[in-house]
């Protein structure tokens, strides 16, 4: 019940992100979600794509350093306090959050969040116990392809 995120090392210099996205577009790779963690010298680009293993191969072949990390994707109802509830569940269970970012799908009034935690199994266990089911890869793919 995780999705695979691709993390890519990108230098913090003008045009570097454009170069990277050009490679994705030339290979027909669509990004579902994107986030960047930046330092003065470099950034870590984090993306969610349909076929992470194929995409990672293409990215590596293009000369980038990247890695695949299993992360949690959770649907967040569009109502006040929804995110707070999930964070509280994780926090109470002592699950430490490394980073998080949000994305949306087009068809529903639902936001999605990616959670990178230290211990995925424990996070999945407490979330499921509280009636929240982290999405898996096929969930994400359906989200988009139903719409087509």
């Amino acid at each position, binding site marked *: 019940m995780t999705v695979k995120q691709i*993390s890519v*090392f990108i*230098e913090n210099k003008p045009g570097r992100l454009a170069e990277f996205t050009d490679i994705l577009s030339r290979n027909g790779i669509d990004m579902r979600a994107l986030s960047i963690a930046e*330092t003065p010298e470099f950034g870590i680009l*984090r993306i969610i794509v349909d076929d992470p293993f194929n995409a990672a191969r293409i990215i590596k072949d293009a*000369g*980038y*350093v990247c890695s695949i990390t299993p992360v949690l994707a959770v649907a967040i109802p569009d109502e006040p306090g929804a995110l707070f509830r999930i964070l509280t569940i994780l926090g109470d269970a002592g699950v430490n959050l490394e980073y998080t970012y949000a994305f949306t799908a087009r068809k529903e009034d639902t936001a999605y969040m990616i959670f*990178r935690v230290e211990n995925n199994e424990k996070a999945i266990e407490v979330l499921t116990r509280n009636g929240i089911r982290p999405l898996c890869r096929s969930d994400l793919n359906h989200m988009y392809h139903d719409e087509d």
Partner: protein
Amino acid sequence: MERYYQPEIECASREQILSWQNERLVKQVRHVYDNVPYYRKKMEEKGVTPDDIRSVEDLHKLPFLTKADLRDAYPYGLCGEPLSKCVRIQSTSGTTGRRVVAFYTQHDIDLWEDCCARAIMAAGGTNEDVVQVSYGYGLFTGGAGLHGGSHKIGALTLPMSSGNTDRQIQFMCDLGATIICCTPSYAAYLAESINERGLRDQIHLKAGIFGAEAWTQEMRRDIENSLGIKAYDIYGLTEISGPGVAFECSAQTGMHINEDHFIAEIIDPETGEVLPEGSKGELVFTCLTKEAFPLLRYRTRDICVLTREKCSCGRTHVKMSKPMGRSDDMLIVKGVNVFPSQIETVLLNKGYAANYQIIVDRVGNSDRLEVQVEMTPEMFSDTVTLITARERELVEALKAMLGIYAKVTLVAPKSIARSEGKAVRIVDKRKLY
């Protein structure tokens, strides 16, 4: 008026100097052959015996010594006296973490301090002066050498060592220091700090003796103008004794080599052949009077020119130009010797690839060292915390190896320029030579 510490030596006739050199060389070769098995073996390999060396003319027959020999013979292999006769060790950074260790007898220290005393007097120093020694004290030869020289001329000596700029400036003002000895980059920094604090009219400096790193004429003018002093160059290396092997006089057109203690040669760094006077090449020293660490034909790797033109200061000893470059890949950063191989060792130990570039720059007269490292899959992580923690670890390891701070920049794989498949290791933006 030009002042000399030992006028009868410093202004001796060429014939006199040559006769000292001939006599001392013969004696020294015998001493080394008898007491340094490492060098004796080198001589035997070359088929040379002490009997073959009858004057300076025969010097070229002797084998060279290099930094690699110092490493091989570490720590005692080149020591020419029993340790019971040695009273001091000084040291410098060396390749792959192994330092150069030099030994001194009391006699060696006396002569070294004489050389530094000559340098201070050439810069106008007398027993009326207050000499602030802001070179590092300890293993580094800078502090010890100038400190001893200052004592010899009877000046009031302020053993400040390096660092703590506020205290440096306070002592300089309160105690009326008239001569400052430090690296040129630190002098420039001191000048800046003094002017920032508006203390320029509180200082009494008249001269500075600056060495241990390369500096340009522009930097000399900068320091001279901002402190209102005359800035003198001094040259030396731990292997040969320390600062004072050569020093500048009032003419400021090269540094007089103390030829009563050292014979200087210029060789072709490729072939090892001795080049005629006035040629540009690698500087080689033979120690004539040293007992404990008597290196013969030591290759300094510094590229320079020797000139015997008559000097307006009255000294007769040969002059060397400022070093114009190196015949190896050693860098001098903040007065510290840095070899790319040291950086490579650290990178490999820490799991990084040997794809790196060293960038040296001078920002406001102060050296900056940066090591660019190509990111590898092994070192990469999806969290910034982990990558920066690894980066910090690398900075610490580099500091432990080099003794100075180097900024680490992680760059994209294959982004470091390669020429003919080989990476360009060093980018020196300082334009010192």
